[in-house]
């Protein structure tokens, strides 16, 4: 069934069109949501915060976008259980907005890294884990992708099964090899790799399909 999926656009978001196309290719109906406009979150079956460089990554990656008016509605939607996905910069924005725990810091290489990685599905509950596939080959492209959280937060994430995806070979120094996490309710998920760049075999992998498709189906 075709679902209306909201795609957030902040100033400087640059993967919005890619995510939009991927959602369409998966048979859903994407719709752009503008950072400065409030929106009726109830009319969307899922929301996606795409990657890019909102506000140029200035100050801290995601920090300025987290202050956008549209984020008030994202917060409401999150509270009400709407499936929300953050990709790359979207992950950073969700952390800065307090919808996910922890923070994304500079890669241990101190450089931007563009490469293919293998990630493994670790979480098992909630809309974003109903994937039917255990391991995924996906591209990363970021300089602030090293997941960081205090020890007790990390322990809680592990204990509560809120780690969504882990790198098989850690590319950026992420603590506990984390490449994606979930919130407590498991409706908000985010990852650093780009599933929208891996949905057709000509892109080099189509493993991103099932990952995107899982949560876009709507709340369980």
């Amino acid at each position, binding site marked *: 069934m075709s679902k209306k999926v909201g795609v957030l656009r902040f100033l400087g978001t640059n993967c919005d069109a890619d995510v939009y196309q991927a959602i369409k290719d998966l048979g859903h109906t994407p719709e752009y949501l503008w950072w400065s406009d409030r929106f009726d979150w109830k009319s969307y079956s899922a929301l996606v915060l795409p990657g890019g460089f909102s*506000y*140029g990554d*200035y100050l801290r990656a995601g920090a300025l976008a987290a202050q956008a008016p549209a984020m008030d509605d994202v917060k409401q939607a999150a509270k009400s259980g709407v499936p929300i996905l953050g990709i790359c910069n979207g992950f950073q924005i969700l952390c800065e907005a307090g919808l996910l725990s922890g923070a994304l810091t500079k890669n241990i290489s101190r450089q931007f890294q563009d490469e293919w990685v293998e990630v493994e599905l670790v979480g098992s509950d909630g809309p974003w884990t109903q994937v039917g596939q255990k391991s995924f080959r996906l591209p990363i492209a970021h300089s602030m992708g090293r997941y960081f959280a205090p020890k007790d937060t990390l322990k809680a994430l592990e204990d509560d099964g809120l780690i969504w995806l882990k790198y098989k070979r850690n590319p950026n120094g992420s603590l506990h090899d984390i490449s994606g996490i979930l919130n407590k309710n498991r409706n908000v998920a985010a990852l650093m790799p780009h599933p929208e760049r891996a949905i057709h075999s000509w892109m080099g992998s189509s493993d991103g399909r099932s990952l995107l498709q899982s949560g876009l189906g709507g709340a369980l």
Partner: protein
Amino acid sequence: MKYLVTIMPREEALDPQGRAVQSTLNRLGFKVQDCRVGKVVVVDLADGSNESQNLEAVKKMAQTVLSNPLIETFEVRTL
């Protein structure tokens, strides 16, 4: 002995970061006339005995390594 080095974008140089931060702050209702984003570096020198020599050394590192004189200025302060 600890020294604080403050590095700022030159007055006449464009500060993209400051411009973006300022625009967000103003939208949130703060009244910001100008905003510039720099960085600070704290260095602790092993030898605390010679204040003026130390200050010279910190200035030298600020000039040659910590800042890019083409686009940045710096200030050194004893902590």
